[in-house]
């Protein structure tokens, strides 16, 4: 009874806030039938948690509902360190949503999103329908498994969404006999986390060097060359993993044979492995396709670079790996920074204020050994003539060398960014 009264009062309060906004001359639709102004966020990862939090921080009169299919989230960044044996488990990479929900008054709903009605401004889920004034979709990636014949992630894990897949790959490495061969297949760019496959190469090589004498890792890269931090990875492999890492560019895996434990490169070359880690080519998360947010490339979502609003569906914003964010890489830090840009401008739009120009940052650390890391950085803004996100001159660069200090900073980075997402 008391709860109902409290909710009723809350609705009255929100209604009053909406009326003020109406008077201020907000041109966009900001009043839903329920009374208060509502934002629904889909996806509880690097993008979604931050969008939800920052909208509430900047305007607590907006109701925010965060919909995520799991009751927890495991970070992809740093999950390679678990494969390498630096982390004993993934508990330090796992966040829950209870503190985020209570600290910022975010309604967190554990449900599967089944559809988005853009015209009707509603999201259909396994736990009912949610109305929104603006929607933020941060659904991460889905795999284009149809481009690899015979692919079965239970036998050849991708481990490119952290969690059970990462544990499966780790178990396979542990079970492998000494002198064995690991095969790692890298898809054509763009994919989630450009330096990630090369960090994984380093971490698996470190594990093999320490635990499986005589073993090696064959890296089959569909790209013509190492996509990110090339000089630094080559230096690290030469320094630590000579004779263990066998890197082969322009080798696109198109077919696998789970029985023979082999991969086929464009029908001409077959390579066998004891453990095979196939990272398939990628596209925007499933729900982005269902909701008509994916562009003509049938892979990624075109957005306004200043608000991250979809150019295809009004009042729906797409952030993180799914979006086409110009020069920004598909990284956890990018998703975090894009979420804040999106949140600030959603709040501006819903209050009838001018939107702000965007400013965003990316910093990605990669580990080469247990105590050496390297980084790539960038500060990003919109080139208004081209209407595209570009890096600010001079801000993009990589570490001059492998660095023990950067490994120390990287450890604090993961602590900070996961704390930001969960409290």
């Amino acid at each position, binding site marked *: 009874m008391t709860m109902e009264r409290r909710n009723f009062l809350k609705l009255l309060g929100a209604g009053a806030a909406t009326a003020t906004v109406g008077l201020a001359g907000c041109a966009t639709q900001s009043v839903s039938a329920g009374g208060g102004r509502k934002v629904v966020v889909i996806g509880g990862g690097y993008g979604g948690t931050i969008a939800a939090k920052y909208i509430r921080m900047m305007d607590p009169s907006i109701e925010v509902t965060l919909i995520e299919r799991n009751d927890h989230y495991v970070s992809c960044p740093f999950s390679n360190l678990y494969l390498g044996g630096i982390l004993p488990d993934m508990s330090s990479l796992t966040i829950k949503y209870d503190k985020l929900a209570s600290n910022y008054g975010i309604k967190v709903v554990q449900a599967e999103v089944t559809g988005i009605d853009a015209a009707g401004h509603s999201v259909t889920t396994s736990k009912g329908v949610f109305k929104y004034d603006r929607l933020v979709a941060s659904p991460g990636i889905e795999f284009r498994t149809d481009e690899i014949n015979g692919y079965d992630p239970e036998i050849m894990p991708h481990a490119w969404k952290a969690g059970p897949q990462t544990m499966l790959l780790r178990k396979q490495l542990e079970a492998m006999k000494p002198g064995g061969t690991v095969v790692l297949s890298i898809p054509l760019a763009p994919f989630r986390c450009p330096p990630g496959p090369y960090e994984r190469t380093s971490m698996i090589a470190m594990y093999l060097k320490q635990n499986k004498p005589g073993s090696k890792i064959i890296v089959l890269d569909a790209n013509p060359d190492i996509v990110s931090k090339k000089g630094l990875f080559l230096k690290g492999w030469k320094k630590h993993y000579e004779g263990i890492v066998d890197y082969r560019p322009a080798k696109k895996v198109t077919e696998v044979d789970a029985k023979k434990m082999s991969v086929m490169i464009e029908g001409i070359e077959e390579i066998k492995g004891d453990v095979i880690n196939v990272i398939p080519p990628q596209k925007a998360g499933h729900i982005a396709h269902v909701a008509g947010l994916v562009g003509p490339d049938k892979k990624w979502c075109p957005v306004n670079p200043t608000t991250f609003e979809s150019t295809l569906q009004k009042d729906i914003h797409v952030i993180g790996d799914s979006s086409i964010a110009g020069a920004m890489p598909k990284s956890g830090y990018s998703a975090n920074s894009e979420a804040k840009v999106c949140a*600030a401008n959603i709040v501006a739009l819903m209050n009838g204020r001018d939107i702000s120009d965007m400013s965003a*940052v990316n910093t990605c650390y990669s580990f080469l050994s247990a105590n050496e890391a390297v980084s790539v950085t960038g500060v990003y803004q919109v080139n208004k003539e081209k209407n595209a996100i570009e*890096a600010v001159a001079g801000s993009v660069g990589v570490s001059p060398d492998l660095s023990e200090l*950067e490994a120390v*900073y990287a450890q604090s980075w993961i*602590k*900070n*960014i996961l*704390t930001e997402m969960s409290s």
Partner: protein
Amino acid sequence: MKRIKWSEWALAVCALAVSAGAHAAPSTEMLANACAGCHGTKGASAGPSMPSLAGQSKVFFIDAMKKFKSGERNATVMGRLAKGYSDEQVVAMADFFAKQKPQNQSAAVDPALVASGKAISDSACKRCHLENGKEFEEDTPIVAGQWLKYLQIQMDEFSSGKRKMSEKKVEKVKSLSRADWEAVAHFYASQK
């Protein structure tokens, strides 16, 4: 030629930022929010080697970013990231973080080192790091309650010569041993 003090330089830049305000975008919040991925929400760091920026002196922040940008201060990522911002944007960010509530870190400190660090700081540090590091003068940072690990890294860079010191600082700290630097780090980290 008279050397311009940092405070004067900052004031001049402030005036510039205000006059450019009508056209200046992105917003201060937009700029500062992007730092939080490494430095914590509103500059309150949860990572022991990453300094908290919340409540930091505006003059120091501007000075540090200028030195990162020019390469005068040794850095990993900050040397590159600082190049992404104009002087006006740096001032706006400095202003944002100076207004945030300082966060005292709960890093474990060694009580014996805290005591000896206090004695050392009383003779060598306190004329610039005022009130046991809680207040600042000119371009000195607020160091009280900063993360121990971060302070240790900085002390190491000062004592090894990687991070340049002002002449006045060189004079004050020239007799300090590595152990003394370590003790001073524990002392300032312990301050609330």
